[in-house]
Protein backbone atom coordinates (compact mmCIF):
# COMPACT_ATOMS: atom_id res chain seq x y z
CA UNK A 1 0.00 0.00 0.00
CA UNK A 2 1.26 3.51 -0.72
CA UNK A 3 0.37 6.90 0.69
CA UNK A 4 -2.39 7.77 -1.79
CA UNK A 5 -4.01 4.35 -1.30
CA UNK A 6 -3.84 4.93 2.44
CA UNK A 7 -5.60 8.31 2.08
CA UNK A 8 -8.16 6.82 -0.30
CA UNK A 9 -8.96 4.04 2.19
CA UNK A 10 -9.22 6.54 5.05
CA UNK A 11 -11.69 8.64 3.03
CA UNK A 12 -13.83 5.54 2.37
CA UNK A 13 -13.76 4.26 5.96
CA UNK A 14 -14.61 7.62 7.53
CA UNK A 15 -16.92 8.95 4.79
CA UNK A 16 -14.75 12.05 4.61
CA UNK A 17 -13.92 13.79 1.32
CA UNK A 18 -10.51 12.83 -0.11
CA UNK A 19 -9.22 16.37 0.53
CA UNK A 20 -10.01 16.04 4.26
CA UNK A 21 -8.49 12.57 4.55
CA UNK A 22 -5.40 13.91 2.78
CA UNK A 23 -5.12 16.84 5.19
CA UNK A 24 -5.58 14.56 8.24
CA UNK A 25 -2.93 12.11 7.03
CA UNK A 26 -0.46 14.90 6.33
CA UNK A 27 -1.13 16.56 9.69
CA UNK A 28 -0.33 13.28 11.45
CA UNK A 29 2.82 12.63 9.41
CA UNK A 30 4.00 16.21 9.94
CA UNK A 31 3.47 15.99 13.71
CA UNK A 32 5.42 12.72 13.76
CA UNK A 33 8.24 14.11 11.61
CA UNK A 34 8.54 17.29 13.69
CA UNK A 35 8.64 15.28 16.90
CA UNK A 36 11.48 13.09 15.64
CA UNK A 37 13.28 16.13 14.17
CA UNK A 38 13.38 17.70 17.63
CA UNK A 39 14.85 14.48 19.00
CA UNK A 40 11.68 13.44 20.85
CA UNK A 41 10.02 10.03 20.66
CA UNK A 42 6.59 8.80 19.60
CA UNK A 43 4.52 6.21 21.45
CA UNK A 44 1.30 4.92 19.94
CA UNK A 45 -0.47 2.20 21.92
CA UNK A 46 -1.23 -0.89 19.92
CA UNK A 47 1.02 0.23 17.08
CA UNK A 48 4.54 0.93 18.21
CA UNK A 49 7.11 3.54 19.16
CA UNK A 50 9.77 5.59 17.42
CA UNK A 51 12.97 6.77 19.06
CA UNK A 52 15.89 8.74 17.66
CA UNK A 53 19.31 7.23 18.28
CA UNK A 54 22.44 9.37 18.11
CA UNK A 55 25.66 8.04 16.64
CA UNK A 56 29.10 9.54 17.21
CA UNK A 57 31.47 10.11 14.36
CA UNK A 58 33.52 7.02 13.52
CA UNK A 59 36.31 5.83 11.24
CA UNK A 60 34.74 3.86 8.41
CA UNK A 61 35.80 2.48 5.08
CA UNK A 62 34.42 2.82 1.62
CA UNK A 63 33.53 -0.83 0.97
CA UNK A 64 34.28 -0.49 -2.76
CA UNK A 65 37.69 1.15 -2.60
CA UNK A 66 38.76 0.23 0.93
CA UNK A 67 39.63 3.87 1.48
CA UNK A 68 39.39 5.12 5.07
CA UNK A 69 36.75 7.79 5.64
CA UNK A 70 35.46 9.69 8.63
CA UNK A 71 31.74 9.10 9.06
CA UNK A 72 30.15 12.24 10.57
CA UNK A 73 27.92 11.99 13.66
CA UNK A 74 24.32 11.24 12.77
CA UNK A 75 20.87 10.58 14.16
CA UNK A 76 18.60 7.79 12.98
CA UNK A 77 14.98 6.98 13.80
CA UNK A 78 14.13 3.48 15.03
CA UNK A 79 10.71 1.88 15.07
CA UNK A 80 9.80 -0.72 17.64
CA UNK A 81 6.60 -2.54 16.83
CA UNK A 82 4.10 -2.73 19.69
CA UNK A 83 3.26 -6.06 21.32
CA UNK A 84 -0.28 -6.33 19.97
CA UNK A 85 0.69 -5.56 16.37
CA UNK A 86 3.79 -7.78 16.58
CA UNK A 87 1.67 -10.73 17.66
CA UNK A 88 -1.01 -10.14 15.05
CA UNK A 89 1.51 -9.75 12.21
CA UNK A 90 3.21 -12.98 13.28
CA UNK A 91 -0.10 -14.85 13.46
CA UNK A 92 -0.95 -13.73 9.95
CA UNK A 93 2.00 -15.70 8.48
Amino acid sequence: MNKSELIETLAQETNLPFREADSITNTILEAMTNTLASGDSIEIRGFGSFVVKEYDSYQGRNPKTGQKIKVPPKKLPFFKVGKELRERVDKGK
Partner: protein
Amino acid sequence: MTLTKADLVQHIYKIHDNDMTKAQATEAVEALLKIVKDCLIEGEDLLISGFGKFNVKNKKARRGRNPQTGQELILDARRVVTFKPSGILRDKINGK
Protein backbone atom coordinates in the same frame (compact mmCIF):
# COMPACT_ATOMS: atom_id res chain seq x y z
CA MET B 1 8.01 15.25 25.16
CA THR B 2 6.74 11.98 23.80
CA LEU B 3 4.09 12.23 21.10
CA THR B 4 1.03 10.09 21.80
CA LYS B 5 -2.27 9.30 20.11
CA ALA B 6 -3.97 12.04 22.16
CA ASP B 7 -1.47 14.57 20.73
CA LEU B 8 -2.29 13.47 17.18
CA VAL B 9 -6.00 13.95 17.86
CA GLN B 10 -5.21 17.42 19.25
CA HIS B 11 -3.19 18.37 16.14
CA ILE B 12 -6.05 17.40 13.84
CA TYR B 13 -8.66 19.07 15.98
CA LYS B 14 -6.63 22.31 16.01
CA ILE B 15 -6.51 22.43 12.21
CA HIS B 16 -10.10 21.31 11.65
CA ASP B 17 -11.73 23.07 14.59
CA ASN B 18 -14.51 24.54 12.46
CA ASP B 19 -15.46 21.40 10.55
CA MET B 20 -14.69 18.52 12.91
CA THR B 21 -15.62 17.58 16.45
CA LYS B 22 -13.07 16.12 18.85
CA ALA B 23 -14.87 12.78 18.53
CA GLN B 24 -14.47 12.89 14.74
CA ALA B 25 -10.78 13.73 15.07
CA THR B 26 -10.34 10.76 17.41
CA GLU B 27 -12.25 8.55 15.02
CA ALA B 28 -10.04 9.65 12.11
CA VAL B 29 -6.82 8.83 14.02
CA GLU B 30 -8.20 5.43 15.06
CA ALA B 31 -9.33 4.70 11.49
CA LEU B 32 -5.94 5.61 10.04
CA LEU B 33 -4.11 3.42 12.57
CA LYS B 34 -6.46 0.53 11.87
CA ILE B 35 -5.83 0.76 8.11
CA VAL B 36 -2.06 0.82 8.68
CA LYS B 37 -2.21 -2.14 11.08
CA ASP B 38 -4.55 -4.20 8.89
CA CYS B 39 -2.23 -3.64 5.93
CA LEU B 40 0.77 -4.99 7.88
CA ILE B 41 -1.24 -7.87 9.39
CA GLU B 42 -2.17 -8.88 5.83
CA GLY B 43 1.57 -9.09 5.16
CA GLU B 44 1.54 -6.12 2.82
CA ASP B 45 4.31 -3.49 2.90
CA LEU B 46 3.36 0.13 3.46
CA LEU B 47 5.25 2.88 1.65
CA ILE B 48 4.65 6.41 2.90
CA SER B 49 6.61 8.72 0.64
CA GLY B 50 8.51 11.39 2.55
CA PHE B 51 8.31 9.39 5.78
CA GLY B 52 9.42 5.82 5.32
CA LYS B 53 8.57 2.26 4.49
CA PHE B 54 7.13 -0.40 6.79
CA ASN B 55 8.15 -3.85 5.61
CA VAL B 56 6.72 -7.21 6.63
CA LYS B 57 9.55 -9.72 6.61
CA ASN B 58 9.50 -13.48 6.94
CA LYS B 59 12.24 -14.74 9.23
CA LYS B 60 13.39 -18.34 9.08
CA ALA B 61 13.55 -20.52 12.16
CA ARG B 62 16.99 -20.34 13.75
CA ARG B 63 18.92 -21.68 16.67
CA GLY B 64 19.25 -19.13 19.45
CA ARG B 65 20.23 -18.91 23.06
CA ASN B 66 18.53 -17.72 26.18
CA PRO B 67 20.93 -14.90 27.10
CA GLN B 68 20.19 -15.37 30.80
CA THR B 69 20.77 -19.10 31.10
CA GLY B 70 22.90 -19.69 28.01
CA GLN B 71 20.59 -22.56 27.09
CA GLU B 72 20.21 -23.27 23.39
CA LEU B 73 16.74 -23.17 21.92
CA ILE B 74 15.06 -23.12 18.53
CA LEU B 75 13.43 -19.83 17.59
CA ASP B 76 10.44 -20.53 15.34
CA ALA B 77 9.99 -18.94 11.92
CA ARG B 78 8.40 -15.53 12.46
CA ARG B 79 6.92 -12.66 10.55
CA VAL B 80 8.10 -9.23 11.70
CA VAL B 81 7.63 -5.54 10.87
CA THR B 82 10.65 -3.39 10.07
CA PHE B 83 10.82 0.34 9.33
CA LYS B 84 13.17 2.06 6.89
CA PRO B 85 13.13 5.86 7.16
CA SER B 86 12.99 7.86 3.95
CA GLY B 87 15.89 10.12 2.98
CA ILE B 88 13.69 13.15 3.61
CA LEU B 89 12.90 12.05 7.19
CA ARG B 90 16.58 11.23 7.84
CA ASP B 91 17.64 14.66 6.61
CA LYS B 92 15.04 16.45 8.73
CA ILE B 93 16.15 14.55 11.83
CA ASN B 94 19.72 15.58 11.10
CA GLY B 95 18.74 19.22 10.65
CA LYS B 96 19.42 19.32 6.91
